[in-house]
């Protein structure tokens, strides 16, 4: 299991860097259609910030931020957002993921609805990728045996 690092430089740098990494990840997700990036890349950067926190501050400290239950909820929530928007377009008599149909409920022009729909999709993808990256890293670093499993 990964324990908290004794080194003060690593701990301080990581603690100060994590909020900026997450801010940059949000920027990558939001500007996915203007600049390189998008949902997957932003999600990977968000996951990398959590991995950095896990490496430097240890598993018990990171679990206060995002527990195993939270990881499961977030990864399912992202998938729900993705498929929910897709199904909503189907219900509004369009094709699957045909965002321009969303203009009927959002009360905006079809091209604006398309932009908003892509943003929603990317948010869902980013949430899922972040949660799954973090979950894979936890599973690999602990060998699949979590500390609270041993206590029960």
């Amino acid at each position: 299991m990964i324990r908290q690092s004794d080194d003060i430089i690593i701990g301080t740098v990581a603690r100060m860097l994590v909020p900026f990494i997450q801010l940059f990840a949000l920027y990558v997700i939001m500007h996915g259609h203007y600049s390189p990036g998008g949902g997957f890349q932003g999600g990977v950067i968000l996951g990398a910030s959590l991995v950095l926190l896990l490496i430097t501050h240890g598993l018990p400290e990171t679990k206060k931020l995002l527990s195993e239950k939270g990881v499961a909820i977030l990864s399912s929530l992202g998938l729900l957002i993705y498929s929910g928007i897709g199904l909503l377009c189907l219900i509004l008599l369009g094709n699957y993921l045909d965002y321009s149909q969303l203009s009927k409920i959002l009360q905006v022009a079809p091209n604006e609805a398309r932009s908003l729909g892509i943003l929603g999709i990317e948010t869902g993808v980013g949430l899922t990728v972040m949660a799954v990256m973090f979950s894979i890293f936890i599973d690999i670093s602990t060998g699949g045996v979590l500390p609270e499993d041993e206590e029960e």
Partner: protein
Amino acid sequence: MNQFFLGAGIGISFLVLLVLYRVVFGPGVYNRIAAISAIGTKSLIILLIMGFIFHRVDMFVDISMVYALLNFIGCVAVAKYLEMES
């Protein structure tokens, strides 16, 4: 101006080859980590120079920021692995 950036890029690429010698033959694992980190920094600069050559610096700055970030996290992760190993 393009010629200048092209020359600078080729020069830094040559420097990467020099550092690559440390990665392959370097005595011990710590020399290799330092050399890989240096290569990551140099490729970041090469990315930015490519951005200047293609006149799309605003795009390449984003990519190079992510590259620097992942380089740092990878370095910390390898160091942590070695610490747990010993």
